[in-house]
């Protein structure tokens, strides 16, 4: 029982990181970013290369990796996405192209065997007959801290308010002099960085393979749809719901069934309450 609680919490926090990043870029820029999983994978691989090849200390490698991926996200938005913004389908396809490219590049450079990223905390804790690795707890804590920082950023900085304004009404924000184009790049950078942080945090205990970004992408998407496209609170709640229901089902029934939760939830939501359970109606 405690195990479910802890594992569920860890998974949920990582999902929350991913989902919030995904919903940010969608809510603000209407970009359905299929490369979101690629950012996650790049974060993990970045941490790996910088520690294994550049021999940097893990904490430095982690920070660098996140910054690099964030920058990559900004570049992608500026060069590839911006010219295609009129068509949602075109944006979807181009981000897909990026995701495919990234996976191919990773495959070419690193091959398909799983890579080993050292843990930041090599300790294992024991609580009431449950073993939990320190790294997982770190992931949980890290994710929570990042989310809080994001919230503070959105609420209390000028750029943050600008982002929220655009998410509410992009046209009105433009009339008020907010440089929406530049904001989109910033938001993409933040979104990519958050995905990268998730990748870095889980790299020590997840399988690091080139295709590792696909499932997280699907989950982020599912959470965001259920929570409401563009709603940060919805994404967090959705992440908790998904994380815990997956953990419970995986423990009690089977892993296969747990994988269907996310997609089934999407379908049900779209049919019953398309704007998501916490999204604004007519967010489009």
């Amino acid at each position, binding site marked *: 029982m405690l195990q479910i609680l802890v594992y569920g919490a860890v998974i949920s926090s990582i999902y929350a990181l991913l989902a919030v990043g995904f919903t940010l870029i969608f809510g603000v820029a209407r970009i359905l970013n299929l490369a979101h999983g690629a950012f996650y994978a790049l974060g993990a691989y970045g941490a790996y290369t910088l520690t294994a090849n550049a021999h940097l200390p893990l904490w430095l490698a982690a920070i660098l990796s996140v910054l690099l991926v964030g920058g990559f996200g900004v570049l992608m938005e500026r060069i590839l996405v911006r010219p295609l913004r009129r*068509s949602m389908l*075109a944006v979807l396809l181009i981000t897909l*192209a990026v995701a*495919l490219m990234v996976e*191919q590049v990773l495959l070419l450079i690193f091959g398909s065997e799983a890579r080993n990223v050292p843990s930041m905390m090599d300790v294992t804790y024991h609580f009431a007959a449950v073993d939990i690795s320190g790294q997982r707890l770190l992931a949980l804590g890290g994710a929570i801290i990042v989310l809080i920082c994001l919230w503070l950023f959105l609420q209390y900085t000028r750029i943050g308010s600008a982002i929220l304004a655009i998410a509410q009404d992009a046209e009105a924000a433009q009339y008020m002099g907010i440089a929406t184009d530049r904001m989109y790049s910033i938001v993409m950078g933040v979104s990519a960085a958050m995905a990268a942080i998730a990748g870095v945090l889980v790299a020590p205990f997840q399988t690091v393979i080139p295709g590792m970004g696909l499932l997280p992408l699907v989950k982020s998407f599912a959470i965001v749809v259920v929570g409401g496209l563009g709603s940060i609170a919805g994404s967090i709640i959705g992440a908790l719901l998904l994380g815990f229901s997956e953990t419970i089902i995986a423990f009690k029934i089977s892993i296969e069934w747990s994988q269907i939760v996310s997609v089934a939830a999407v379908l049900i939501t779209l049919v019953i309450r398309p704007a998501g359970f916490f999204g604004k109606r007519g967010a489009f």
Partner: protein
Amino acid sequence: MKIDWLAAVLALAALAAIPLVFTSSYIIGVMTVAVCYGMWAASWDFMSGLTGRDNFGHSLFIGAGAYTAGFLNVEFGANPWWSLPAAPVIAVLFSLLMGFPTLRLRGPYFALAMLSAATVMQNLTIIFSVYTGGQDGLNGLFPILDSTLAYYYLTLAFLAASAVLLKALANSSWGVILRAIRGDEAACQAAGINVTFYKIVSLAISAAIAGLGGALYAHYQLQVGPDLFAVVLSINIIIMVYVGGIGSIYGPIAGAIFLNVLTETLRGLSEYRLWVYTLVLMLILFFLPQGIMAPLWQRLRARLA
């Protein structure tokens, strides 16, 4: 107009002639698959290309059609010919199930719902492996015709019939309404048109042909698997439509055949295949959003007329 039908007949003749020139069964196989993709691409284009309501889960109908063929033939031992009427019917049922709740709404809900529905079906076929054979799927379907050459001509005939049907509809007042839906749905309502009805029926037509293509594919491969519901398939089809020329019906068919042949030619360079695909995609999106085939034909036709 005449020149279009003439060109179509010529293209059909060319497709029919290919196996007579290149007599290997490998080529016939590639072309049969390409023809199936042609049906899938054309049917996607009819609904999404014309109305602009993008469908990210076309594979739902393909898989539905294919598995219908699989069940009827393998589980119930029915004569394989039964797959051909049954598959479209099941696919249409799926389209109605999905279409009714989601096509009423504006925004990307329809697109996303289709995407998730296809993925749900993929997962379900894996989970209920007792009935569906799981990852391995259903094997041992019987071919409809014993000669692969004859079967190629059968699928080609179905492609031609579908193309004629879809193009005729697209050129009729039905097509005018679908394009108006793409232009402005609210204005369409204000013009007295029951937009939801047209969207749902168009989706059903699209599903029927896709499902038929699925069954034809199943009876060629003689097996069906969960991959037929995969998102990858839906995306590949959309890429083919883009390459061919969205909205033209015949362009996507050309795009489908072209890309199938291209991928087969590159089969030797298996790692680079994905690169090629992705590069083609990027090129089209940035430089040729109207596609390649349809605009080429329009230019040619202007010269000839």
